[in-house]
């Protein structure tokens, strides 16, 4: 069965600083990878996804992530964060050709301070 580990439960940063949110996954087969964002009192929204092809994927709001198969990682990055990026970020994985199940990590709370 697949699993996702988000190493940092909380990441505080200052506005305009770069940020990296770490995600590692475990699976015996090929996977699709996702990052979702949850703003306070809202549902989750897709930031970006890796299905195949280029290992660097760009998403909404200036975020990007890089798939590293050898390290089984899919870290999320943004070169310069805004106050409005304060939210909970979830990494998720689904096996290719497997069930419909999307497995989420425990989330990383990003807090951007002025």
């Amino acid at each position, binding site marked *: 069965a697949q699993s996702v580990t988000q190493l940092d439960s909380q990441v505080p940063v200052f506005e305009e600083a770069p940020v990296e949110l770490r995600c590692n996954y475990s699976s015996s087969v090929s996977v699709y990878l996702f990052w979702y964002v949850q703003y306070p009192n809202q*549902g989750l929204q897709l930031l970006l996804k890796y299905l195949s092809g280029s290992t660097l994927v760009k998403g909404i709001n200036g975020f990007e992530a890089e798939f590293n198969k050898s390290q089984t990682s899919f870290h999320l990055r943004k070169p310069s964060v805004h106050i409005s990026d304060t939210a909970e970020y979830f990494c998720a994985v689904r096996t290719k*050709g*497997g069930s*419909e199940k*999307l*497995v989420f990590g425990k*989330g990383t709370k990003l807090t951007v301070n002025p």
Partner: protein
Amino acid sequence: DTAVSQTPKYLVTQMGNDKSIKCEQNLGHDTMYWYKQDSKKFLKIMFSYNNKELIINETVPNRFSPKSPDKAHLNLHINSLELGDSAVYFCASSQGGTSGTNINTGELFFGEGSRLTVL
């Protein structure tokens, strides 16, 4: 024009009661889900339906019973509510199945959640 809508948004009830949460999607998707998010923000899948057929049924107490009258609706009924059922319940939908040219890549569209508080 909400894509995935859930009602009610807030639900406060006593232990032992029975309650339902409704979900509707207007995206034309084939697959719908219920996820539970606990107080620590951990998201866990409960159920998934594809074209009204149950395809994922995680280890969830029998008190929870999903029902999909058509592929645009997925409701969740909970009997004999317990304190531990307090959580935010998210409905989601996605396109496609597990084979063919329309394989479900797993991109989910979420509703805004239904916050259940059991007293």
